[in-house]
Protein backbone atom coordinates (compact mmCIF):
# COMPACT_ATOMS: atom_id res chain seq x y z
CA UNK A 1 0.00 0.00 0.00
CA UNK A 2 1.51 3.35 -1.07
CA UNK A 3 2.07 5.65 1.84
CA UNK A 4 3.74 8.91 2.57
CA UNK A 5 5.14 10.32 5.74
CA UNK A 6 3.54 13.46 7.12
CA UNK A 7 5.01 14.82 10.34
CA UNK A 8 6.10 11.32 11.31
CA UNK A 9 2.72 9.72 10.57
CA UNK A 10 2.26 7.08 7.90
CA UNK A 11 -0.58 8.21 5.70
CA UNK A 12 -2.12 6.21 2.88
CA UNK A 13 -1.77 8.07 -0.41
CA UNK A 14 -5.45 7.43 -1.18
CA UNK A 15 -6.33 9.26 2.02
CA UNK A 16 -4.31 12.29 1.02
CA UNK A 17 -5.81 12.18 -2.46
CA UNK A 18 -9.37 12.03 -1.08
CA UNK A 19 -8.62 14.96 1.21
CA UNK A 20 -7.38 16.94 -1.77
CA UNK A 21 -10.49 16.01 -3.79
CA UNK A 22 -12.81 17.10 -1.00
CA UNK A 23 -10.92 20.36 -0.82
CA UNK A 24 -11.71 20.99 -4.48
CA UNK A 25 -15.44 20.27 -4.17
CA UNK A 26 -17.14 23.61 -3.69
CA UNK A 27 -19.37 24.28 -0.71
CA UNK A 28 -22.32 24.62 -3.07
CA UNK A 29 -21.66 21.20 -4.63
CA UNK A 30 -21.32 19.65 -1.20
CA UNK A 31 -24.66 21.09 -0.15
CA UNK A 32 -26.25 19.75 -3.32
CA UNK A 33 -24.68 16.33 -2.78
CA UNK A 34 -25.87 16.39 0.83
CA UNK A 35 -29.45 16.98 -0.33
CA UNK A 36 -29.11 14.34 -3.03
CA UNK A 37 -27.81 11.69 -0.61
CA UNK A 38 -30.47 12.61 1.97
CA UNK A 39 -33.12 11.97 -0.67
CA UNK A 40 -31.91 8.55 -1.81
CA UNK A 41 -29.92 7.06 1.07
CA UNK A 42 -32.78 5.22 2.80
CA UNK A 43 -33.95 3.49 -0.33
CA UNK A 44 -30.51 2.38 -1.47
CA UNK A 45 -29.77 1.32 2.09
CA UNK A 46 -32.84 -0.93 2.06
CA UNK A 47 -31.66 -2.40 -1.26
CA UNK A 48 -28.26 -3.11 0.27
CA UNK A 49 -29.88 -4.70 3.35
CA UNK A 50 -31.95 -6.98 1.13
CA UNK A 51 -28.80 -7.91 -0.82
CA UNK A 52 -26.46 -8.47 2.12
CA UNK A 53 -28.91 -9.55 4.79
CA UNK A 54 -27.43 -7.30 7.46
CA UNK A 55 -27.33 -3.63 8.30
CA UNK A 56 -23.63 -3.19 9.02
CA UNK A 57 -22.47 -4.42 5.63
CA UNK A 58 -25.25 -2.42 3.98
CA UNK A 59 -24.08 0.76 5.72
CA UNK A 60 -20.49 0.13 4.63
CA UNK A 61 -21.67 -0.33 1.05
CA UNK A 62 -23.65 2.92 1.12
CA UNK A 63 -20.80 4.90 2.63
CA UNK A 64 -18.31 3.51 0.09
CA UNK A 65 -20.72 4.36 -2.71
CA UNK A 66 -21.15 7.92 -1.40
CA UNK A 67 -17.38 8.39 -1.19
CA UNK A 68 -16.96 7.07 -4.74
CA UNK A 69 -19.63 9.43 -6.09
CA UNK A 70 -18.01 12.44 -4.39
CA UNK A 71 -14.57 11.36 -5.53
CA UNK A 72 -15.41 10.69 -9.17
CA UNK A 73 -18.53 12.63 -10.08
CA UNK A 74 -19.00 15.58 -7.74
CA UNK A 75 -18.47 17.99 -10.61
CA UNK A 76 -21.04 16.31 -12.87
CA UNK A 77 -24.49 17.70 -13.51
CA UNK A 78 -26.90 17.04 -10.62
CA UNK A 79 -29.24 15.11 -12.92
CA UNK A 80 -26.53 12.54 -13.61
CA UNK A 81 -25.99 11.70 -9.94
CA UNK A 82 -29.04 9.43 -9.64
CA UNK A 83 -28.11 6.92 -12.36
CA UNK A 84 -24.43 7.12 -11.43
CA UNK A 85 -25.12 6.50 -7.75
CA UNK A 86 -27.32 3.49 -8.53
CA UNK A 87 -24.62 2.12 -10.77
CA UNK A 88 -21.99 2.55 -8.04
CA UNK A 89 -24.23 0.99 -5.37
CA UNK A 90 -25.05 -2.05 -7.54
CA UNK A 91 -21.38 -2.53 -8.44
CA UNK A 92 -20.35 -2.24 -4.79
CA UNK A 93 -22.98 -4.82 -3.83
CA UNK A 94 -21.66 -7.14 -6.53
CA UNK A 95 -18.11 -6.72 -5.23
CA UNK A 96 -19.38 -7.52 -1.74
CA UNK A 97 -20.98 -10.71 -3.06
CA UNK A 98 -17.75 -11.75 -4.74
CA UNK A 99 -15.76 -11.17 -1.55
CA UNK A 100 -18.29 -13.20 0.42
CA UNK A 101 -18.04 -16.06 -2.07
CA UNK A 102 -14.24 -16.08 -1.83
CA UNK A 103 -14.45 -15.94 1.97
CA UNK A 104 -16.89 -18.85 2.07
CA UNK A 105 -14.70 -20.86 -0.29
CA UNK A 106 -11.63 -20.21 1.86
CA UNK A 107 -13.47 -21.07 5.06
CA UNK A 108 -14.83 -24.20 3.39
CA UNK A 109 -11.32 -25.12 2.33
CA UNK A 110 -10.03 -25.00 5.92
CA UNK A 111 -13.19 -26.68 7.22
CA UNK A 112 -14.52 -23.64 9.10
CA UNK A 113 -17.44 -22.85 6.84
CA UNK A 114 -20.58 -22.90 8.95
CA UNK A 115 -22.59 -21.34 6.16
CA UNK A 116 -25.15 -23.75 4.82
CA UNK A 117 -26.76 -21.06 2.71
CA UNK A 118 -29.12 -19.97 5.44
CA UNK A 119 -26.82 -18.18 7.87
CA UNK A 120 -26.98 -14.70 6.39
CA UNK A 121 -30.65 -14.94 5.62
CA UNK A 122 -31.42 -15.17 9.30
CA UNK A 123 -29.74 -11.81 9.85
CA UNK A 124 -32.95 -10.08 8.82
CA UNK A 125 -33.87 -10.14 12.49
CA UNK A 126 -31.29 -7.36 12.74
CA UNK A 127 -33.13 -4.90 10.49
CA UNK A 128 -34.81 -3.02 13.29
CA UNK A 129 -38.15 -4.68 12.62
CA UNK A 130 -40.45 -5.55 15.51
CA UNK A 131 -40.62 -9.15 16.71
CA UNK A 132 -42.62 -11.47 14.46
CA UNK A 133 -45.58 -11.85 16.82
CA UNK A 134 -45.96 -8.05 16.98
CA UNK A 135 -46.08 -7.59 13.28
CA UNK A 136 -49.27 -6.71 11.53
CA UNK A 137 -50.14 -8.88 8.57
CA UNK A 138 -48.77 -6.48 6.00
CA UNK A 139 -45.55 -6.03 7.97
CA UNK A 140 -45.15 -9.78 8.22
CA UNK A 141 -45.67 -10.08 4.51
CA UNK A 142 -43.15 -7.29 3.89
CA UNK A 143 -40.60 -9.14 5.99
CA UNK A 144 -41.32 -12.33 4.05
CA UNK A 145 -40.78 -10.44 0.82
CA UNK A 146 -37.42 -9.19 2.13
CA UNK A 147 -36.37 -12.74 2.81
CA UNK A 148 -37.66 -14.02 -0.51
CA UNK A 149 -35.81 -11.24 -2.33
CA UNK A 150 -32.64 -12.01 -0.42
CA UNK A 151 -32.84 -15.64 -1.55
CA UNK A 152 -33.02 -14.65 -5.22
CA UNK A 153 -29.82 -14.72 -7.27
CA UNK A 154 -28.24 -11.26 -7.04
CA UNK A 155 -28.91 -10.23 -10.65
CA UNK A 156 -32.60 -11.13 -10.39
CA UNK A 157 -32.82 -9.28 -7.10
CA UNK A 158 -31.18 -6.17 -8.56
CA UNK A 159 -33.40 -6.20 -11.65
CA UNK A 160 -36.51 -6.55 -9.50
CA UNK A 161 -35.59 -3.83 -7.02
CA UNK A 162 -34.65 -1.32 -9.69
CA UNK A 163 -37.58 -2.05 -11.99
CA UNK A 164 -40.40 -2.77 -9.57
CA UNK A 165 -39.47 -0.57 -6.63
CA UNK A 166 -37.49 2.26 -8.14
CA UNK A 167 -39.66 2.24 -11.24
CA UNK A 168 -36.64 2.52 -13.51
CA UNK A 169 -36.88 1.83 -17.22
CA UNK A 170 -35.27 -1.26 -18.72
CA UNK A 171 -32.53 0.96 -20.20
CA UNK A 172 -31.75 2.69 -16.88
CA UNK A 173 -31.76 -0.64 -15.05
CA UNK A 174 -29.36 -2.08 -17.62
CA UNK A 175 -27.06 0.91 -17.10
CA UNK A 176 -27.17 0.53 -13.32
CA UNK A 177 -26.50 -3.19 -13.51
CA UNK A 178 -23.89 -2.93 -16.23
CA UNK A 179 -25.57 -5.44 -18.53
CA UNK A 180 -27.74 -5.56 -21.66
CA UNK A 181 -31.44 -4.69 -21.73
CA UNK A 182 -32.19 -8.26 -22.77
CA UNK A 183 -30.51 -9.58 -19.63
CA UNK A 184 -32.53 -7.17 -17.48
CA UNK A 185 -35.78 -8.47 -19.01
CA UNK A 186 -34.73 -12.07 -18.38
CA UNK A 187 -33.62 -11.45 -14.78
CA UNK A 188 -36.74 -9.43 -14.02
CA UNK A 189 -39.12 -11.97 -15.46
CA UNK A 190 -37.45 -14.79 -13.50
CA UNK A 191 -37.62 -12.73 -10.32
CA UNK A 192 -41.35 -12.03 -10.76
CA UNK A 193 -41.94 -15.71 -11.45
CA UNK A 194 -40.01 -16.71 -8.31
CA UNK A 195 -41.92 -14.22 -6.16
CA UNK A 196 -45.35 -14.88 -7.67
CA UNK A 197 -46.64 -17.30 -5.04
CA UNK A 198 -45.63 -15.03 -2.21
CA UNK A 199 -47.07 -11.92 -3.81
CA UNK A 200 -50.33 -13.61 -4.75
CA UNK A 201 -50.86 -14.49 -1.08
CA UNK A 202 -50.64 -10.84 -0.15
CA UNK A 203 -53.97 -9.08 0.27
CA UNK A 204 -53.43 -5.49 1.30
Amino acid at each position, binding site marked *: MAECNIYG*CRVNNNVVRYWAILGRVSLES*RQKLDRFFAGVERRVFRMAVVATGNQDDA*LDIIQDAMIK*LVKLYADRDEKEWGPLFHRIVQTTIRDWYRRQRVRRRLLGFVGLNRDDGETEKEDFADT*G*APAAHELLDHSRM*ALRLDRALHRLPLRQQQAFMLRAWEGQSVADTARAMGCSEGSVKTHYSRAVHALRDLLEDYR*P
Partner: protein
Amino acid sequence: MNQEGKERQLTDRARRMLEQRLEELDEETIGRLYEARQKALHRPSPRRPRWIAMGGWAAAAASFLLVVTLWNSDNRTPEAPGIFEDLELLSTKEDMEFIEDLDFYLWLDDEQQTG
Protein backbone atom coordinates in the same frame (compact mmCIF):
# COMPACT_ATOMS: atom_id res chain seq x y z
CA MET B 1 -56.82 -10.12 -16.56
CA ASN B 2 -54.01 -10.43 -19.09
CA GLN B 3 -50.44 -11.40 -18.22
CA GLU B 4 -49.19 -7.84 -18.24
CA GLY B 5 -51.95 -6.62 -15.96
CA LYS B 6 -51.35 -9.46 -13.54
CA GLU B 7 -47.65 -8.72 -13.45
CA ARG B 8 -48.33 -5.05 -12.77
CA GLN B 9 -50.60 -6.00 -9.91
CA LEU B 10 -47.90 -8.17 -8.40
CA THR B 11 -45.22 -5.51 -8.66
CA ASP B 12 -47.61 -2.92 -7.16
CA ARG B 13 -48.00 -5.18 -4.15
CA ALA B 14 -44.25 -5.64 -3.91
CA ARG B 15 -43.75 -1.89 -4.06
CA ARG B 16 -46.23 -1.33 -1.24
CA MET B 17 -44.49 -3.91 0.91
CA LEU B 18 -41.07 -2.44 0.24
CA GLU B 19 -42.35 1.03 1.12
CA GLN B 20 -43.73 -0.47 4.31
CA ARG B 21 -40.27 -1.75 5.26
CA LEU B 22 -38.79 1.64 4.46
CA GLU B 23 -41.11 3.26 7.00
CA GLU B 24 -39.95 0.81 9.62
CA LEU B 25 -36.38 2.14 9.62
CA ASP B 26 -35.52 3.05 13.19
CA GLU B 27 -33.99 6.29 14.44
CA GLU B 28 -30.62 4.67 15.12
CA THR B 29 -30.31 3.46 11.53
CA ILE B 30 -31.35 6.84 10.18
CA GLY B 31 -28.70 8.42 12.41
CA ARG B 32 -26.04 6.04 11.13
CA LEU B 33 -26.95 6.86 7.54
CA TYR B 34 -26.63 10.55 8.35
CA GLU B 35 -23.22 9.88 9.87
CA ALA B 36 -22.09 7.96 6.76
CA ARG B 37 -23.18 10.88 4.58
CA GLN B 38 -21.32 13.39 6.71
CA LYS B 39 -18.15 11.29 6.60
CA ALA B 40 -18.33 11.16 2.81
CA LEU B 41 -18.91 14.88 2.46
CA HIS B 42 -17.02 16.64 5.20
CA ARG B 43 -13.72 16.47 6.87
CA PRO B 44 -14.31 15.77 10.56
CA SER B 45 -13.50 18.85 12.65
CA PRO B 46 -10.00 18.16 13.88
CA ARG B 47 -9.42 17.70 17.57
CA ARG B 48 -6.10 19.32 18.24
CA PRO B 49 -3.86 16.90 20.13
CA ARG B 50 -2.64 18.16 23.48
CA TRP B 51 1.01 18.09 22.42
CA ILE B 52 0.24 20.52 19.62
CA ALA B 53 -1.46 22.92 22.02
CA MET B 54 1.46 22.68 24.43
CA GLY B 55 3.88 22.96 21.55
CA GLY B 56 2.15 26.17 20.52
CA TRP B 57 2.73 27.76 23.93
CA ALA B 58 6.33 26.53 23.99
CA ALA B 59 6.95 27.93 20.51
CA ALA B 60 5.44 31.29 21.51
CA ALA B 61 7.63 31.46 24.63
CA ALA B 62 10.74 30.49 22.66
CA SER B 63 9.96 33.09 19.99
CA PHE B 64 9.51 35.77 22.64
CA LEU B 65 12.85 34.89 24.26
CA LEU B 66 14.57 34.89 20.90
CA VAL B 67 13.17 38.29 19.97
CA VAL B 68 14.22 39.76 23.32
CA THR B 69 17.70 38.27 23.00
CA LEU B 70 18.16 39.58 19.48
CA TRP B 71 16.76 42.98 20.42
CA ASN B 72 19.22 43.34 23.28
CA SER B 73 22.11 42.04 21.31
CA ASP B 74 24.59 44.55 19.93
CA ASN B 75 25.72 42.04 17.46
CA ARG B 76 23.10 42.33 14.69
CA THR B 77 24.63 39.67 12.52
CA PRO B 78 23.58 38.77 8.98
CA GLU B 79 22.16 35.51 10.39
CA ALA B 80 19.35 37.36 12.08
CA PRO B 81 17.07 37.68 9.00
CA GLY B 82 17.54 33.95 8.41
CA ILE B 83 16.26 33.19 11.88
CA PHE B 84 13.25 35.43 11.33
CA GLU B 85 12.53 33.71 8.04
CA ASP B 86 12.51 30.36 9.86
CA LEU B 87 10.15 31.76 12.46
CA GLU B 88 7.88 33.06 9.77
CA LEU B 89 7.93 29.70 8.04
CA LEU B 90 7.07 27.92 11.26
CA SER B 91 4.23 30.24 12.08
CA THR B 92 2.47 30.29 8.70
CA LYS B 93 -1.23 29.47 8.82
CA GLU B 94 -0.89 26.78 6.17
CA ASP B 95 1.51 24.76 8.27
CA MET B 96 -0.74 24.84 11.31
CA GLU B 97 -3.70 23.72 9.20
CA PHE B 98 -1.57 20.92 7.88
CA ILE B 99 -0.80 19.77 11.40
CA GLU B 100 -4.41 20.16 12.49
CA ASP B 101 -5.49 17.86 9.66
CA LEU B 102 -3.49 14.99 11.11
CA ASP B 103 -6.59 13.71 12.88
CA PHE B 104 -8.38 13.62 9.57
CA TYR B 105 -5.52 11.75 7.90
CA LEU B 106 -5.51 9.22 10.71
CA TRP B 107 -9.29 8.78 10.53
CA LEU B 108 -9.30 8.25 6.77
CA ASP B 109 -6.29 5.97 7.01
CA ASP B 110 -8.20 3.92 9.56
CA GLU B 111 -11.21 3.85 7.20
CA GLN B 112 -9.00 2.48 4.43
CA GLN B 113 -7.48 -0.15 6.72
CA THR B 114 -10.82 -1.37 7.99
CA GLY B 115 -12.58 -0.94 4.65
